[in-house]
């Protein structure tokens, strides 16, 4: 695999292989502690993203490799006007694999087209973020024991949330999946995703109030509703509380439902929910590191992985 730009670049089988490897790493991390000895990861972060960058870096360090890179465009040659294509050509002389995050959509593809080393898209603007999708899949499979026969609720900003779109597309591949899409009218799922679900005969339900549907869910995937997305203040005030997960809403949920969130959280999940064993968003971060370890081992074609 030379590059991972879009989560759908991976076949269902490739996803399974990555998740299986992640499971083996979780079971015996010591066995993988030197798999990347002498290898270097370059983290090319043209915009700050502490969690994603540190997840990639800690993943490589735990595999015995080392890390080079930059954490913002200001500290890179981009500030001198260097193109993404030139930067990746140069980085290819120093590192064995690169993870790139860029505010512009398609930047990771440009990097991959010009790279001599494997390139991972670590987020290109509002476009794709494949390692978040892999993180979500590993978390769901680990905590629910399966990727099929699940009712998945996605709540919040479903119009602009790229993680939501990628997760829906990735989960559509599995049997007996039902989606419950919870959002204000202004932030509904884009038509092309809805058309895709209709074409593939995937059952889904749209709802405006989390309280009305939370009891049906096996998984609740929360995202942030941003004030600036609303056309008027009245609607925002009317709807905002419906998209804040608190203990009274959790009481309506199944005892084995899990709550996920791509983070950062602002106020859409009350801190009181953190103590509930069903709140799994911090575990999700840990699964993110393991799945990135597995992905890099696969992309570097490390023997025995």
């Amino acid at each position, binding site marked *: 695999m030379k590059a991972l730009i879009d989560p759908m670049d991976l076949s269902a089988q490739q996803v399974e292989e990555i998740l299986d490897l992640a499971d083996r790493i979780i079971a015996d991390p010591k066995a993988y502690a030197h798999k990347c000895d002498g290898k270097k990861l370059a983290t090319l972060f043209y915009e700050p993203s502490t969690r994603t960058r540190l997840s990639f870096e800690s993943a490589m360090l735990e595999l015995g490799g080392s890390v080079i890179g930059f954490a913002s465009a200001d500290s890179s040659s981009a500030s001198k006007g260097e193109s*993404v294509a030139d930067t990746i050509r140069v980085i290819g002389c120093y590192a064995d694999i690169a993870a790139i995050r860029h505010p*512009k*959509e*398609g930047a990771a*593809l*440009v990097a991959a087209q010009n790279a001599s080393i494997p390139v991972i898209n670590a987020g*290109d*603007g*509002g*476009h794709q973020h494949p390692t978040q999708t892999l993180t979500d899949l590993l978390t769901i499979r680990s905590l629910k024991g399966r990727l099929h026969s699940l009712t998945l609720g996605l709540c919040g900003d479903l119009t602009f949330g790229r993680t939501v779109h990628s997760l829906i597309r990735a989960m559509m591949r599995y049997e007996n999946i039902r989606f419950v899409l919870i959002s204000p009218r202004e932030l509904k799922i884009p038509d092309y995703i809805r058309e895709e679900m209709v074409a593939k005969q995937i059952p889904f339900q749209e709802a405006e109030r989390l309280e009305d549907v939370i009891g049906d869910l096996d998984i609740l995937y929360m995202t942030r509703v941003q004030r600036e997305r609303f056309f008027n203040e009245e609607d925002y005030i009317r709807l905002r509380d419906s998209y804040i997960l608190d203990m009274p809403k959790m009481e309506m949920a199944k005892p084995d439902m899990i709550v996920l969130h791509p983070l950062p959280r602002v106020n859409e999940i009350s801190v009181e929910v953190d103590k509930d064993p069903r709140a799994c968003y911090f575990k999700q971060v840990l699964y993110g590191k393991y799945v990135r370890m597995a992905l890099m081992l696969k992309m570097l074609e490390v023997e025995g992985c």
Partner: protein
Amino acid sequence: MLNIDSLERGLVIDHIEAGKSMEIYKFLNLDKLDCSVAIIKNARSKKTGKKDIIKIEDTLDIDLDVLGFVDPNITVNVIDGGRIVEKKHLTMPKQVVNVVRCKNPRCITSIEQELPQVFNLVEGAGGDHPVYRCAYCEQEYSPKK
């Protein structure tokens, strides 16, 4: 009825949607040609009521992919010796390069101007209005809209 001299040799781009001929003129860079070019707007059409037609004298080489991208219903008649020697029917090309620019301000091509502007045809999307998407950011470009 307006009369334009018939061609001895050249191309007749027919069945252009009424009012779209100038768009085609620009896409094909016909302003760069030295030969005669006639643009006929709102000609009578049995099928659609009105249509545009472009006649190009002495040139047989135009980018059919560009025409297929703009409107695959257009037909191109090749004229030689004063008669039609070939009728070309267009298909939508799978990819067009440097024909249209991506208008998404968040696309990498908005800041890296030297990148080729690539649009790919998305199979099965858009129904009657096939959709092209930017190869970088997947922004939709629908020529018929």
